[in-house]
Each structure stands twice: as structure tokens, then as C-alpha cells.
């Protein structure tokens, strides 16, 4: 068979093509939704990674200091493999400024939302710098009914692209580290809420506790959702 014959035959094979039934607008809407969903998932996944990393590192520090030490989420961005480079949209000074503002607002807001807390301390969180996401994070610890708890607050400023999804996503993820930690079960239980805000940022607020005691799940979800939607706690 000659190459020209093959060319002609292939052209002829598609000559009687039926009308295109594909709705391009629908495809674009679907693509936007999938993109938004996956970005939000990556964002919340990043926050979860930060929490788990903090839980593993934190208690080691706590043991060394002889008490329950809040997980500090130290160090740079989590080491999640990503081939895409991080594209910072803010200078480090701007990020530091916003992080400081969040740190200043967080204890007051936590005290206002969670009744009966005392001895609040806020520590640096870890910015989940994944791909082209930009975010800030802070970790607040406090005492409630004699026990120590922590709230980790993350704002990813460009978490979603599709604004039609705004405010639609409230996810509660109760988690428990399987097997706990060797010699230390501190901060083993995590319960978090993700909220997509109208400004397209994604907020993840997580409650960390040593055991399942403390406030009931409904109350926790209420606290976390309230904090996640608190306009004063923002990027």
C-alpha cells in the first residue's frame, strides 16, 4: 500500500462523520468544576499533611520538654513532591505581615468562639506551599476543662478558581492516627472543617486533641465552622 493511498483512505473514512453532539460549553463548565474541586482537595490535602507532620514532630518536642507542647509545625513548606514550581504572588515580607495579623487575631477569636478556654498561645504554623498555592497557617493551643487542645488554622488564598462554588464546601473530616504515637498519644485526634470562601480562598481549621474526650463532635464542628467563616481571620 502506498502512503498516498493510506492518506486518501483515512480522509475517506472520516468523510461521513456525524454531527458533533459535544456541548463545548458543558465541557468547559465540567472542566472548571473538576479543576476547582481538585484544587480545593490539593489545598486541604496540603493542610492535612501539615497537621500529620506536626503531630509526628510535636510530641517528640513535648516529651523533651516534659509536657504537652503544641505542635509547632516547624520548618519550611511540607516536602510533598511536585514537579510544578511554586509561583509566589506575595513577597515573604507580605506573607509575614499577614501571618502576624492572623496570629494577633486568632487567640481573641478562639476565645470568643470556644467558651471556657484559657492560657492561649499562638505558634507559627507551616505554610502549605504547594504548586502555585499561597497560604498562611497558625497554631493556637489552649486549656479547656483542665486538658490541653490545639486549633490549627490555614488560609490558602488561591484555593479555588471557580467562584460559582463559593461557600458551597463545608467538609468535616474526623481523623485518628492509627496506633497513635510511640510512647505518646498526645494530639492523636484530629477533626477539621474546610470552607471555600466567596473570595476563592480555602480555609482549613483543625481541632487537635489527645483523646476523644472534650466537647462533643457537634459542638466542635460548630466552633470550627464559625472560625473558618470568621471574616477577621483571613489572609
Amino acid at each position, binding site marked *: *500500500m502506498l*502512503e498516498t*493511498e*493510506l*492518506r486518501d*483512505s*483515512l*480522509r*475517506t*473514512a*472520516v*468523510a*461521513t*462523520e*456525524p454531527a*458533533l*453532539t*459535544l456541548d*463545548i460549553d458543558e*465541557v*468547559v463548565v*465540567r*472542566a*472548571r468544576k*473538576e*479543576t476547582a474541586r*481538585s484544587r480545593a482537595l490539593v489545598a486541604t490535602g496540603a493542610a492535612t499533611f501539615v497537621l500529620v507532620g506536626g503531630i509526628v514532630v510535636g510530641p517528640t518536642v513535648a516529651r523533651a520538654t516534659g509536657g504537652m507542647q503544641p505542635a509547632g509545625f516547624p520548618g519550611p513548606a511540607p516536602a510533598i513532591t511536585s514537579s*510544578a514550581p511554586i509561583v509566589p504572588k506575595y513577597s515573604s515580607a507580605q506573607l509575614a505581615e499577614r501571618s502576624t495579623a492572623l496570629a494577633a487575631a486568632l487567640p481573641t477569636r478562639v476565645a470568643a468562639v470556644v467558651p471556657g478556654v484559657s492560657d492561649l498561645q499562638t505558634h507559627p504554623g507551616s505554610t502549605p506551599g504547594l504548586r502555585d498555592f499561597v497560604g498562611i497557617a497558625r497554631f493556637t493551643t489552649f486549656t479547656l476543662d483542665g486538658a490541653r487542645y490545639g486549633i490549627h488554622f490555614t488560609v490558602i488564598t488561591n484555593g479555588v478558581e471557580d467562584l460559582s462554588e463559593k461557600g458551597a464546601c463545608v467538609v468535616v473530616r474526623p481523623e485518628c492516627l492509627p496506633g497513635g504515637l510511640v510512647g505518646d498519644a498526645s494530639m492523636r485526634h484530629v477533626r477539621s472543617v474546610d470552607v471555600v470562601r466567596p473570595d476563592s480562598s480555602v480555609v482549613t481549621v483543625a481541632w487537635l486533641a489527645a483523646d476523644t474526650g472534650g466537647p462533643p463532635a457537634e459542638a466542635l464542628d460548630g466552633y470550627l465552622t464559625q472560625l473558618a467563616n470568621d471574616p477577621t481571620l483571613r489572609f
Partner: protein
Amino acid sequence: MFAREHARTLRRSAYLFCGDWHTAEDLVQATLVKIYRSWSRLGKRDTVHNYARTVLLRTWLDEKRKPWRRREPVGSEVPDTADPTIDIAEGVSRSWDRDVVHKALLTLAPRQRAVLILRYFDELSVAETARVMRCTEGTVKSQAARGLDSLRAAVARLSEGELTHA
């Protein structure tokens, strides 16, 4: 918009890959969604079409790995009722001539099929085909040569009435 401009072209290539217009449309839809998701990372617009070909090819190869898609239909349209105005013998003969090469093409191994479609339908150079298929130019040349040989043999078999289908 890219999707509007290229949906038809992509669907033709997809049809030649899989032999079914409905599957071709599904493949194009999946391809366009994937392209949308990586749009911000794509470079110049003139390379986007070849990137789309790569995505389409990989989407099709992935689909073929799914058990429920392994059998490809040769014909996609079944008429509900006979049209008395049509000379069936003449129609069958014309349709057979038109389809025999594509039918033979569908019996080839997927990557050989892809090389022939990219080279002789999409009119890509050896270098462009290699980029789309993510392989070396030498592989493209050898796959094309073997593909043409296999296609000749398949056309001969089909013309002799051996209606086997891979």
C-alpha cells in the same frame, strides 16, 4: 477558543484510533477537560494542538486498558429501517471500499495504529510524531514501516474475506 476550534479535528483522529464515533466523542471530551486543567502550564499556542494530540493518544491508550473497553466495535451506526431507494449492493461495495483500510487499521497494535494516523492523517513529521508519542524518532520510523507492512497484510486478509478483528 481552543476547544471549539479543535474539537472536530480531535474527534476525527479519535475516531481513527478507536473506530467508533461515540467513543471518539467521549475521548475528545476527556481530552479537553485534561487540557483545560493544565492550560495555565502550557506554552505557546501553536504547540497546544500537538499537546492535545498527546493527551488524546494517552487518554485512548488508558481507555483501552480498561476491561470494558478492550473490544472495539468496527461499525457504530445501525439503521433502524431499510431505505428502499438505496441500492444495497452498490452501497455495500462503496462502503466496503471506504472502510476496508480503516477496518484493517483497527486490527493493528495500538501504537502502530497511532503512528500511522499521526503521520498520514494528521500529517505530522517524524520529529513531531515522536514528540506527541513521547518516543524516539527511530521508534517512529520503525513503527511506521512495520505498521504499513501489517496494514497491507490486513487489507489483503480483509479483501479475501477473512473478517477477523483484534
